[in-house]
């Protein structure tokens, strides 16, 4: 089964596991299986419209799924899926 690596802050929603093996042939199916098993994780990964939150990137091994087939990207049993935040910022556009 594909393995999903759980970022530290989300482990509290997955029985403190640092990785979870889940069924699925695509990234979408694997993430659906993950959030079905651990429903509290869903609001961290998806917005109210069911879309991945803007700060969530998903990698299959070393590949960003945005440059593959997004949630339809195929995953094999030996693949490792990583959830990686998207982060930027800067001092402009308002302060305190």
């Amino acid at each position: 089964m594909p393995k999903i690596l759980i970022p530290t802050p989300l482990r509290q929603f997955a029985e403190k596991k640092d990785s979870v093996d889940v069924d699925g042939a695509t990234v979408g199916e694997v993430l659906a299986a993950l959030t079905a098993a651990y429903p509290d994780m869903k609001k961290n990964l998806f917005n109210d419209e069911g879309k991945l939150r803007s700060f969530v990137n998903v990698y299959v091994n070393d590949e960003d799924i945005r440059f593959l087939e997004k949630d339809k990207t195929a995953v094999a049993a030996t693949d490792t899926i990583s959830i990686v935040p998207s982060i930027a910022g800067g001092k402009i556009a308002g302060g305190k």
Partner: protein
Amino acid sequence: MIKIEQEAWQLMVEHAQKTYPNECCGAMLGPIDGDTKTVRVALPLENAYPGAQRERYELRPEDLLFAEREARKNGMDLIGIFHSHPDCDAYFSKTDLENSCPWYSFVVLSIQKGQFHHANSWLPNMEQTEAAKEELEYPHA
């Protein structure tokens, strides 16, 4: 709360001062014990923002993937992100907030005229609409 150990702190300040007048960025790794996060390792990363880096920073997701892997390899956690604000205070700007991630601590270092001035840590909410100040402990020179 978040505590930053001497060696990591020194690296963060050096990275911020060296990058001045541009903004720097990097990852913070270490153990988390209950409510206490201890930054043991600072990982300076490249500011990948394609425009004016005096006012903006951007982390490449693949660099964060690397940081996450480093943490796992060393039995630590990815605790958060640091970046600098050259010649202004260590607030969490609207730009910081809108491009943040609620899972991590965000330490901002104020660099005034090339020298470290002060720092704050912030915890953004899920909707990226506000950030709470987090208790921060760092070594003083």
